[in-house]
């Protein structure tokens, strides 16, 4: 198990807890991560909205680098993951577009051959490493913790282009949560959107969409929410205070974690190595419960 690691703009810019916890935990599970030299933005969401050629150029540029490395690419962001999947699809379908993209890539000595492979973190953990191996390596089980699973839209849809998990009944993140000894159960809003992509057009509506889901998650008795998407995480964790303000509801306190942070705690890593000091939601009491 060896992958070209693509953290992507959001993760490497300010989501250090995600990147650190991925780099801390995956090698412990037999996954080798190789950094990509010279990578760049995937083009989502700005370029996909205003320049189809620019979007596919940027996505294909990274795919070409991974092809050259001879490795499947592991993007950490759901948005990047889908962006690469969509570009692979469009460049397969439209050979004229592919040759125009390649004429630009050539200027940097790159070439998109159409053989790139892209994997999602949920696939690596669930399908490659496997739930049994993870369960077997847990030294600090998350006993009694009720955790809501939030896979995020771009991990599970559209199912005609990708099959990371079932689009209407995703279970992989749930299985991975249970492997750590925690509890999880289905809830009606599980596959609902966090609203983050609306922030650029309507900040207030974004907070309302995210807040409604937080409220629902709390009402079912979950003690925390877990995701693998940096956009969703920033919404529920980083903007939780803003959500409380917008919904005028101070009770909307919910600890939010990247899955790899909880995985790291369960495997015995120290909270600081997992970047937990940068979660802005109230995670302290849960971290203490796990590490004590």
């Amino acid at each position, binding site marked *: 198990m060896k992958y070209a690691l693509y953290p992507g703009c959001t993760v490497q810019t300010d989501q250090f807890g995600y990147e650190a916890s991925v780099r801390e935990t995956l090698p412990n599970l037999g996954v080798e991560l190789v950094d990509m030299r010279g990578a760049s933005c995937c083009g989502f969401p700005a*370029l996909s909205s205003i320049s189809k*050629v620019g979007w596919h150029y940027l996505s294909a540029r990274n795919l070409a680098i991974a092809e050259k490395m001879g490795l499947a690419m592991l993007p950490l962001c759901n948005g990047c993951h889908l962006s690469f999947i969509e570009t692979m699809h469009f460049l397969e379908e439209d050979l004229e577009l592919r040759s125009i993209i390649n004429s630009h890539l050539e200027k940097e000595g790159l070439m998109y051959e159409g053989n790139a492979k892209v994997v999602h973190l949920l696939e690596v953990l669930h399908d490659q490493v496997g739930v049994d191996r993870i369960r077997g390596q847990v030294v600090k089980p998350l006993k009694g913790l009720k955790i809501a699973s939030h896979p995020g839209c771009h991990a599970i849809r559209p199912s005609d282009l990708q099959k990371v998990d079932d689009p209407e009944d995703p279970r992989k993140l749930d299985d991975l949560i249970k492997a750590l000894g925690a509890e999880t159960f289905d809830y009606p809003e599980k596959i609902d959107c966090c609203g983050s*992509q*609306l922030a650029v057009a309507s900040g207030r509506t974004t907070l309302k969409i995210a807040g409604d889901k937080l409220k629902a998650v709390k009402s079912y008795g979950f003690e925390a929410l877990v995701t693998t998407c940096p956009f969703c995480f920033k919404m529920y964790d980083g903007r939780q205070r803003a959500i409380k303000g917008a919904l005028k509801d101070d009770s909307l306190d919910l600890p939010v974690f990247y899955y790899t942070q909880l995985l790291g705690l369960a495997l015995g890593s120290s909270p600081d190595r997992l970047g937990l*000091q940068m979660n802005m939601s109230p995670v302290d009491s849960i971290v203490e419960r796990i590490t004590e």
Partner: protein
Amino acid sequence: MATRNELEVKFISRMLSRLVGEMNAEVCDQCGKCSSACPVSKEIEGFNPRQLIAKVSTGRLNGLLKEDAIWTCTTCLKCRERCPEEISPYDVILILRNLAYRAGYSYPKGYDDFIEGVKESGYVSKPQTVKTRDGGKMSREDMGLPEVAGPEDMGRFRGIVEGIIEAGKSG
């Protein structure tokens, strides 16, 4: 300059005609599964994927291109997933955004900042120093994370990106 814009329009139009072709073959029944799944329809009056498809399939594009509504889609993809006729309001909306931009209508200015960032460093933004929960600050280096390395020849990369994106912008 114009030729590059024409290139964008050519591919955007090709994608739209392919989609509309599929729509004509399948025919939208106006069942409303897209709108009932849409997180934005619940919150913003005037955003309705079902009505949007009706307008596009009858060629009423011009009003749509000028509306803020096309920029408020969260790209959650539930409409595309649940359409029983395999029509994708999500893809139609992305195409309308591209057309609106090419036609010089308004779009969220935040996108310009993203693109400026990409031209400057290869990424939307450079690594920041972030806050910790107890009021401290952390950098990538503090976390022991490797330095971010963008394209090796930034000048060349910037030139390519500008050539593709900027040249086609109208207005």
